[in-house]
């Protein structure tokens, strides 16, 4: 079966090995991206620079401000004397949040009235403002509860909500980002490398000589992607190893399962690239079309932004992206330690993508010049 697959594979392998620049980039990209994402991108925003306008100037108000600081979300950078000073600090970007304690704070609190505290947040960056909002609301609730319990003469709270953040108890960003990054890097590099594969031969004039031979379309396509399956696995191993030892990302599930499913995803990505290669006329177009397809994968798959937050049509759309399903597998296996029973639907879908895309690529490709 497919006697011409092996010569094709050998040829592609030698060419891949000789193209040091491309190979270097393919191995270098994962490392650089991992360090970049792992160190720079922290979605759990802490230590927001905060200015304080304390008009009460009482032990109670200082106690409240200390409570805000103790959440770790706010870092007091300055005390100001009036509203203009606070506004100016936020406008200039010296601070992203302001705490305003009105003059009557301690008095109202003492009389059993509702004391007000105002938190001003620069919400132009929703991500950091959300964490500040949550922290501020938390401080308010804890204080209220304390006051109410004291007023009721030390009664127990009616409900005690105990939250257990499973699978990522520290709520650490790297635990979430690194597994996702495996999928993103594979998509980014593998789609691009095979998108170039056939147009490059067309541009160099080697395709003409190749298609006057009896090689079948399937032998040609499979021979082209096979060497890059190995590259994909090396990339994945690099990211996971760095993730494990540099960023302490947990490794809960079965490695064999992870590699097995990844193999399917790698084949699907490479086939996708091949399909692009049959659509375009030159390498420049291949690059443009690849980015056009890769961007939605990164933005809508749930790598950066939670899919649950997307409008329904986009959630449906993200179902047709291989990366969406692979991310669920990655996070499932790495963080939750789940087995095949939890992820078989995703695995089936990925198999469907791999077989469908390679079939599509083979059918689109013609052994003629027009």
């Amino acid at each position: 079966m497919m006697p011409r697959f092996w010569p094709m594979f050998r040829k592609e392998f030698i060419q891949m090995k000789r193209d040091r620049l491309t190979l270097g980039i393919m191995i270098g990209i994962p490392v650089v991206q991992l360090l970049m994402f792992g160190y720079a991108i922290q979605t759990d925003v802490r230590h927001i620079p905060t200015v304080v306008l304390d008009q009460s100037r009482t032990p109670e108000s200082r106690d409240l401000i200390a409570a805000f600081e103790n959440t770790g979300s706010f870092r007091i950078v300055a005390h100001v004397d009036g509203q203009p000073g606070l506004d100016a600090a936020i406008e200039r970007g010296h601070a992203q949040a302001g705490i305003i304690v009105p003059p009557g704070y301690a008095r109202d609190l003492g009389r059993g009235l509702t004391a007000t505290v105002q938190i001003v947040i620069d919400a132009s960056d929703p991500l950091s403002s959300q964490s500040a909002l949550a922290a501020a609301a938390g401080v308010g609730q804890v204080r209220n509860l304390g006051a109410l319990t004291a007023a009721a003469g030390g009664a127990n709270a009616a409900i005690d909500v105990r939250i257990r953040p499973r699978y990522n108890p520290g709520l650490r960003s790297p635990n979430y980002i690194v597994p996702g990054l495996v999928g993103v890097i594979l998509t980014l590099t593998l789609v691009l490398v095979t998108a170039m594969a056939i147009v490059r031969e067309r541009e160099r004039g080697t395709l003409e000589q190749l298609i006057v031979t009896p090689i079948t379309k399937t032998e040609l396509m499979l021979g082209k992607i096979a060497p890059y399956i190995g590259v994909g696995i090396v990339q994945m191993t690099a990211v996971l190893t760095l993730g494990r030892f540099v960023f302490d990302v947990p490794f809960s599930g079965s490695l064999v399962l992870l590699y097995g499913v990844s193999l399917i995803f790698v084949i699907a990505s490479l086939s996708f690239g091949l399909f692009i290669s049959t659509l375009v006329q030159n390498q420049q177009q291949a690059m443009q079309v690849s980015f056009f397809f890769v961007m939605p994968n990164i933005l809508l798959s749930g790598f950066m932004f939670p899919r649950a937050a997307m409008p329904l049509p986009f959630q449906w759309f993200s179902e047709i992206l291989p990366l969406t399903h692979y991310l669920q597998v990655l996070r499932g296996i790495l963080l939750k330690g789940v087995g095949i029973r939890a992820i078989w639907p995703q695995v089936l879908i990925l198999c469907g993508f791999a077989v469908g895309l390679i079939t599509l690529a083979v059918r689109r490709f013609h052994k003629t010049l027009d």
Partner: protein
Amino acid sequence: MSDVAVDIRQLTRRFGALTAVSGLTLQIARGEVFGLLGPNGSGKTTTIRMLCGLLDPTDGTAIIAGLDVRTAAERVKMQIGYMSQRFGLYEDLTVAENLEFYGGIYGLTGRAGADRTAEVVEFLGIAGRLGQLAAQLSGGWKQRLALGCALLHRPPVLFLDEPTAGVDPAARRNFWQAIHDLAHGGTTVLVTTHYMDEAERCDRLAMMSLGHLIALGSPAEVAAQVGGKTLEDAFIILQERDER
């Protein structure tokens, strides 16, 4: 197999409104060196590409070694060797690797494959260059390597599209010697060329102009049919007529 290696009847190819080859009919006998001559744009390359299965004919038929290119294109591919105008081998592979690759693609494996490769290497005298990257070869050596890759599977029919473009005179002479050796061995060769001295070395010629067959026969007959004393006269008459 009959003595007609290539049988072309009413072969036509249109690209949109342009008719590149129009109703071409000719037969090439087994072991013949047949030249296809004509100015740029006369339809030579389009004809060869149709015969190799690289382009589908719009109309007409071509039978090669008894197989119809329209219905048995993939089987035809085992019967033909092809050299394109542009160097079509892999410049980032060595001479040996290119030969090994095409040998593998044509199903030459094991001892038989190695023997055949050695035979071709010897025939073309490229033994000293086996370890060199194809990119580093001069025009003459590239062309020999390309011929070698096209010959590995002993095709009964060879299609050579301007094989000596950009090759020095000594290398051209050697190349033509190789072509005649192959023809003596029974290989049919269809070659396009721009050089009159090469055209003179063909057994028979077809002269094309704007997709049509203008003259057919021995070099002297073709010159006479077009109305020139020599082949070169004939060619220039044609070219000037085309450009008007």
